[in-house]
Every structure is written in structure tokens, then in C-alpha cells.
């Protein structure tokens, strides 16, 4: 129990009429002022580097939809994805794989875009479930998106509703093979076709209050 009860915490209220979020100007965000440049796709010693990347995939612990329920058995003792070097990381700065697990509401899409753009390259997106491919069960919903790869570059789809952990393991194994062969370059595709992706995103998300590229 705190003994110093006479300290009253000051309440900071934003000035009347201001946004709940920080204004985009004032040098708070880097986003709009820097030109994006995609690094060269070819790199030295690619085989070795890709082997390292494939064998140590760090997944961002972000369950965007109902497919995340199949991720939990994947992590725990029965199916155990740690034996392949995969681990869950809590921040996007330290993760390599973003799993869109199931339907993606437009509201979540805005946050997912910011989280994806804050990840360091190379990074991969895995679409879990049928909703990411063609809308799945929620194809006629007013609030979800039907095709994920209009908004984010997808490197691997795992079909199903929901795919069982064995299917997930097979999917991740395929992703690792693609990485080792040097075929999984969604992040590069995103940077090269940035304007197209951004136009698609802004068409769906009406309350855009972020910079165009979130560092």
C-alpha cells in the first residue's frame, strides 16, 4: 500500500479539440519525408544467409484472427515448433514472420500494416486459413478484406478453416524451403510496388492517421 497518499497524480489532458493521436507533423514521425529505397535483391553468400534465416524464424506474437487458436498447440509440447528454431517474439522489431491468422478486419489491417512496416527486412507474411485467400467464411462481410495480397505481400498460404497444427508445420516447412531457395522475396516486392499497395490500403482504410510508411 502506498504510504504517500498526499501526492495527487496530475492528469494530463490533451488540449481541447486535438486528436487522440499525435499530429503527423512536428517531426514526430519519419514516414513521409524519406524516400523509400529497396536494397538490391542479390546479395553475397546468399545461400548461407538464407540457411541461417530459414532455421531461425521468429514469429511475431500477434493473433489477428481466429486462426491464432491453432498457433497455441503449435507452440506447446505436442507439436512443438521450437525444434525448428522458431520462436515467438513480442515486438515487431525483433520478428521475421508475420502470421495473418484467419479473417482480417479492416480495423486490424491498419495496425497490421504499421506492425509489418516496422519489421526489419527480410520479412515474410504467412496467410493462415481460407479467409486470406478469398474471404473464406466471411466473404460477404462489410468489415473484412477478401484478398490479403492486395494489401500485403504474402509468401505462403496455408489453406483450411482452420488448418490443424500438422498443416501449419507443413506450411512452415515449405516456407523454409522457399527461403533457402531464395524465392521468398515478398518484402522486396512490397518496396518496389509500394504505391500500388498503399493505394489499395487507403481505399479500404478510411480513418488513415499514420504516416505513409511507418518506420
Amino acid at each position, binding site marked *: 500500500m502506498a504510504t504517500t497518499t498526499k501526492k495527487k497524480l496530475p492528469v494530463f489532458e490533451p488540449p481541447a479539440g486535438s486528436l487522440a493521436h499525435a499530429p503527423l507533423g512536428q517531426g514526430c514521425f519519419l514516414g513521409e519525408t524519406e524516400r523509400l529505397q529497396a*536494397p538490391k535483391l542479390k*546479395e553475397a553468400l546468399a545461400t548461407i*544467409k538464407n540457411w*541461417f*534465416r530459414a*532455421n*531461425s524464424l521468429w514469429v511475431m*506474437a500477434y493473433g489477428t484472427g481466429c486462426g491464432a487458436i491453432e498457433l497455441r498447440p503449435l507452440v*506447446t*509440447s*505436442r507439436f*512443438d515448433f*521450437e*525444434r*525448428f*528454431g522458431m520462436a515467438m517474439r*513480442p*515486438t515487431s*522489431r*525483433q520478428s*521475421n514472420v508475420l502470421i495473418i491468422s484467419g479473417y482480417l478486419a479492416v480495423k486490424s489491417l491498419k495496425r497490421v500494416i504499421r506492425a509489418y512496416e516496422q519489421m*526489419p*527486412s*527480410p520479412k515474410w507474411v504467412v496467410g493462415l486459413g481460407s479467409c486470406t485467400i478469398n474471404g473464406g467464411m466471411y466473404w460477404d462481410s462489410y468489415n473484412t478484406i477478401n484478398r490479403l495480397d492486395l494489401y500485403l505481400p504474402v509468401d505462403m498460404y496455408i489453406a483450411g478453416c482452420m488448418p490443424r497444427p500438422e498443416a501449419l508445420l507443413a506450411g512452415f516447412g515449405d516456407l523454409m524451403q522457399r527461403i533457402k531457395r531464395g524465392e521468398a522475396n515478398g518484402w522486396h516486392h512490397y518496396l518496389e510496388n509500394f504505391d500500388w499497395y498503399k493505394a489499395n490500403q487507403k481505399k479500404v482504410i478510411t480513418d488513415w492517421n499514420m504516416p505513409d510508411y511507418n*518506420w
Partner: protein
Amino acid sequence: MPFVVKLGWSLVGVVAAIAYGLTIGGLIRKVMARIQGRIGPPVWQPFIDLGKVIFQRTATQHGVMFYLAPIFRAGGGMGLYLLVPVIIGVPALENFSFNGDLLLVMYFIFFGSLGMALGAAEAGHPHAPIGISRGLSQMTAYELPFALAMVALAAQVHSFSIREIVIAQQGSVLHWNLFANPLAAAAAFLAFLGMNMYSPFNIVGAPQEIPVGPPTEYNSKFLSLMMSGRAILAVAKIVLFMDLFLGGAHSLLEVFAKTLVIYFWSVFVGAVFPRFRTEQSIRFFLGWPTVAGLAGVLLVLVR
């Protein structure tokens, strides 16, 4: 031994210590996995993680202190390793321990954490100072039993020099400080749990609450330096404890065996206990471990 040769050997020692630290990290993960009934990653997994982090193609940084924090962390770990003699009597492995005694070693442990705290806080992420305030509070708490244990050991041999403490423990297994002054050893080993920030004292980087705390904003090459810093810091600490309580070592095999035993003590405790809250862990350290430390000092005074 000429200075350049000594420098060379120390460099080799630093690299070997980083490798050793990463390996025991992998070993820990394997053991914890087996405890939990699953297969677990291969033992060399931390090397793969380190390689992946080094090979990332983009990175972001938040300012000058952001650069400095991993340097402080890794530098603190390496400096600490260089100040602790690994095997007394083999000049190649004594590093630079003639530069400072136990007090310097104790304070150098703080060098790394202080630097990391500063750099992590510069990112501006509110989770960093939350993690740091918890970590520093815990550090002050476990420091009391640790200081009592160190004082007891130093008073026993009338010297703060680690070399003297090791030499005083030669002769037989019963001369080891673990058995010669068990109360001080108890205090120090309980403080060791807090030092490693492993469960149950890992509220500093509680992933579910504050995404890893201080290293929240760290990525690619900064993260690689932090990971290697953590590895060598762990190795330096267990070598220090080996010198202080398990009678030092005469061969590399002995080093590996004794340090593994010390490290697994914290792992096995961590496997069993859930996480303590900050004030619970502070009250814990100021309770029985401090009593043990006080009793250890009394034991030395009475003898």
C-alpha cells in the same frame, strides 16, 4: 608474459567465452524443452539466431545513446570476463585480473546494466523505463545478500583479491567456500538467481507485460551485440562464482563442469517457480538471503 601475447590469449578467451555462453544458452533451451516433454531446438540454435540477426538487411536506430547501449552491455560483459581469472597459475587464462580486485569486479557488473539502461531508454519507448525501473529495483535488493557474502569471503582471507580467495580454497573439497562458509554461499547463490534475471526474477523482461522491457526497440546488429553481451556476461558471472565458492579450477574440463553446475542451479529453480512481482522479489531478497548473509558475516567474525 609479454603484453601482446597476453592480449592475444585474452582475445581468444573472450571469443571462446561468447561461444561457451551461447552454447549453454542452447543447452538450457534443450533441457527446459525436455522438462516440458517436448523435443526442443538443437543445442547450437543460439548461434543460428545470432547469425540470422547479423544478416538482417535493414536496421533502425534512435540516436547516439542507442548505439552506445549494446556497446556498454557487450563491453561490460567482456570487461568483466577479462577481470576474472579463469585458471590460477596459467598466465594465459588469468586475463587481466591483476588490475583490480573483487570490488572492481562487483562494480563492473553494474557498468553493463547501467549502460544498457541508458541506451534502451533513449528509444523513447515507455516500456523501456518500466523494465529498467523494475530491473534496477531488483538489482539493489539482491545486492545486499551479495555484498554480505563478498564481505564475509574477503574477511576470511583478509583480502579482496580473487586470487587469494582461490588459493585459500585449495587442499580439499571441504575447503571450498561452499562448505567452509555455507551461509555466505547460500546468500550469494540466492543473489545469483536475481543476477541472472531468470525466472522467478524475470519481471524485468516479462514478455507478456512489457515486450522484453529494455530491448524493445533493438533490432539487427544492435541486437546481435546485445545477445553476445548477454552470453559473455553470463559466462563471466559463473566463472566468478566458481572462483569464489567452488575453489577455482585447474583445467578447462573442471571449468566447464563447475560452471555448468552453477548455471543449472538457476535454470532448475527457474523451471519450477513462476514469476515474482517486483515488490515480492525485493522483499524476498531482503528477507532470508539477507539473514543468511548476516549469519555468514557473523560466522567469520566469531571464528
